[in-house]
């Protein structure tokens, strides 16, 4: 079953194309890495799939639902590269509301476990807007995982994370994969690429590689033209 499908998906900013027409299918349970140089169109693609950016042309579907629709939002968890938080709610309250907004009634146990895994238990009652860059990223990770999802889109998840944080995140990715969730992870961390089954590479808004990571020179793929 296809979890993410794009058809001639295009985005332009004025005359400048950010993503050339892209047709792509990501199957259920796949773990996919998306690489490319700065400005190659990774974030643009992910944001359109999350429903945060209107396509100039083409379509994106999550499951069988248009991106951004209520059903698509139920299936998709988005972990962006610029975490945002309410400045008047603690991390614990953030977890509570995100979980409840997604219909998770018994969220406390999962929240405790997540905080413990990521190393934020001691900061659960603090306001996350006061956190450092790395701690904010960790807080955002807990919020992305506290809710149920079938597809997770992740943009630059390793930025600002310390080594224990990176290891915890990889563990969470593995656990999600084992549960059958689909993961699409945009990253510049090329060592991570060997852990996925499928690699997508964008260059100047065009898909230049779609295949197994072992069959290509990843470092060459991320060079701008």
């Amino acid at each position, binding site marked *: 079953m296809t979890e993410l499908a794009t058809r001639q998906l295009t985005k332009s900013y004025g005359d400048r194309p950010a993503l050339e027409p892209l047709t792509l299918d990501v199957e259920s349970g796949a773990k996919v890495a998306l690489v490319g140089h700065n400005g190659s169109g990774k974030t643009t693609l992910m944001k359109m799939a*999350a*429903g*945060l*950016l*209107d396509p100039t042309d083409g379509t994106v579907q999550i499951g069988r639902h248009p991106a*951004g629709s*209520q*059903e698509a*939002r*139920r299936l*998709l968890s*988005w972990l*962006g590269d610029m*975490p*945002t*938080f*309410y400045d*008047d*709610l603690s991390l614990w*309250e*953030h977890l509570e*509301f*995100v979980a*409840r*907004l*997604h*219909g*998770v*009634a018994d969220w406390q146990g999962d929240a405790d476990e997540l905080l413990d895994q990521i190393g934020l238990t001691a900061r659960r009652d603090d306001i996350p807007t006061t956190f450092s860059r790395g701690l904010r990223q960790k807080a955002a990770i807990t*919020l992305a995982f506290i*809710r149920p999802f079938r597809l997770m889109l992740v943009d630059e998840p390793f930025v600002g994370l310390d080594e224990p944080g990176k290891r915890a995140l990889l563990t969470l990715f593995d656990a999600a994969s084992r549960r059958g969730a689909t993961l699409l992870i945009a990253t510049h961390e090329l060592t991570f690429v060997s852990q996925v089954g499928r690699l997508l590479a964008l260059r100047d808004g065009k898909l230049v590689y779609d295949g197994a990571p072992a069959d290509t020179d990843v470092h060459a793929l991320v060079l701008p033209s």
Partner: protein
Amino acid sequence: MSENALDVLHDLRRRRKRHRLDDIEWFDAAYRVYLVALFGGGTVLWISSSVVDSTLSDRAVADIARNGPALIGMVTAIAFLAALRSGAQGGPLALEAPDVSYVMLSPVDRARALLRPATQRVRSATYLAATFGAIVGQLAGRRLPGTPVAWAASGVLFGITTAMLWAGTALVAHAIRLPLWTATSIGLAGVAWQSAALVWHIPGPANLDGSLAMWGWRQHPIDLAAPLLALTFVAAGVGMLQLTSLDALARRSSLVAQLRFAVTMQDLRTVILLRRQLNQEQTRGRPWVAVPRWVGHPIARRGMASVARFPATRLVRITVFAAMAGVLQAMVVRGTTPALIGTALMLFVLGLEVMEPLSQEVDQPDRTDGLPIERGELLVRHLIAPALTLVPFAVVAAVCAVSVLGTTSAIAPAFILALPTVLAGAAGGVVSIVRDAPDPTRTTQQAFVPPEMAGLSNAFRIGLPILVSTLAASTVLLVRQAERLGTSTTGAALRGAIGASLLTLLITYWVRRRDHWRRKIRQFMADGQSYAKQRSTPA
């Protein structure tokens, strides 16, 4: 789903409200309210008392009866244009960034979730417009048939109707993804039609709303169609909330947060900058004209390069400000003294708009500090290009003033007074920009303003630039006085022009010497403190 997402959302909002209320420093809040009441109320009372209480002549009253609906309707037509453009650019709603990330991306019914932000937007717009309508209405009631109270009520009605029309139109334009050029074309067509209604006395699209504003004098039941239409637009806009673009909400969310912070800090320069970003107003990649080779000085060249890249929308806006300043000055000459405040505000905002090279320099203090030139001199040199830019806009102001006055005897005074007034008025903007700039002479240990004076200091910070612009606009009073006394209006204009020019020179000198003076004051205070410390230390 175990519980309704909307109930969770309401719970979230309730809890956030409780947290915010807990965090409020009530004494500080009360002090701010006191200051606003003191200065805001004082200004309104001053304007009210400056209106001559004598009623207008029969001819003037007949003129207002004939042209009033079309003229006031122009406000509605412009609000309609602004609403269409706002909707086309992703407005009028703005959510907090986390609301976009967590609420809008959750499986909650977006139309229901956006209902409250939409209601708040409509409510705040109607409240603001109603207040403004009431103030203008009661001023009108002092000179026109009808009581000030009745006029204030009709002003409120007009304000609410116009604000509802604005909000509803913007919501609809957003939902149907109206392209910006279509929005601008439709809006401009409306303004052109309304202008034609004013000039040729044909029915205008906003005449009914304009006529509603005159209910303090006489009532036409047909005018009630205007609020009904506005309500219909609001209902349609709210009904289409499901179609709101998350793309636009995400883009605007961070800008709106910064905008609110800037408003809280009374940082007018940042407010204007962020408004431009919200409207997606971008500097032209290719300048309108190349900077002439004979302009050799790098700062002057940099200034001209900046001005030559002003986008068309900003140039149109500056032209409108200049034109309105001219019209308002003509109204002052005709006896409406409070119009001076309007002129001052127009010139002040015009100054903030046109002083882009100066603002850019102020926004980059680290780069400024790295230049081998004294800051005061650098800032003064940055005034040259904007000052030259203001010349054609001064001509626009003069032409508009003469058009409204409708007499050839106004040509000479208007053109003599226009440029010095526009320059001195824009100097208010300069004061605001330079005062808000980071102070390189200050260290963190030095804070000589006691906390109890900080509120007054803030009020002074906002008030001084407006005062400068008001002084510049006041030069027109000399012309009015000369006209009333039957003396030479040209001579009066010359005196006014000299006064305005002196004010401009004074502000320029202040910009040049400000750092020097501040350094001296701080040194003096530091010396005083160290002397006091020495005396208190036992030998």
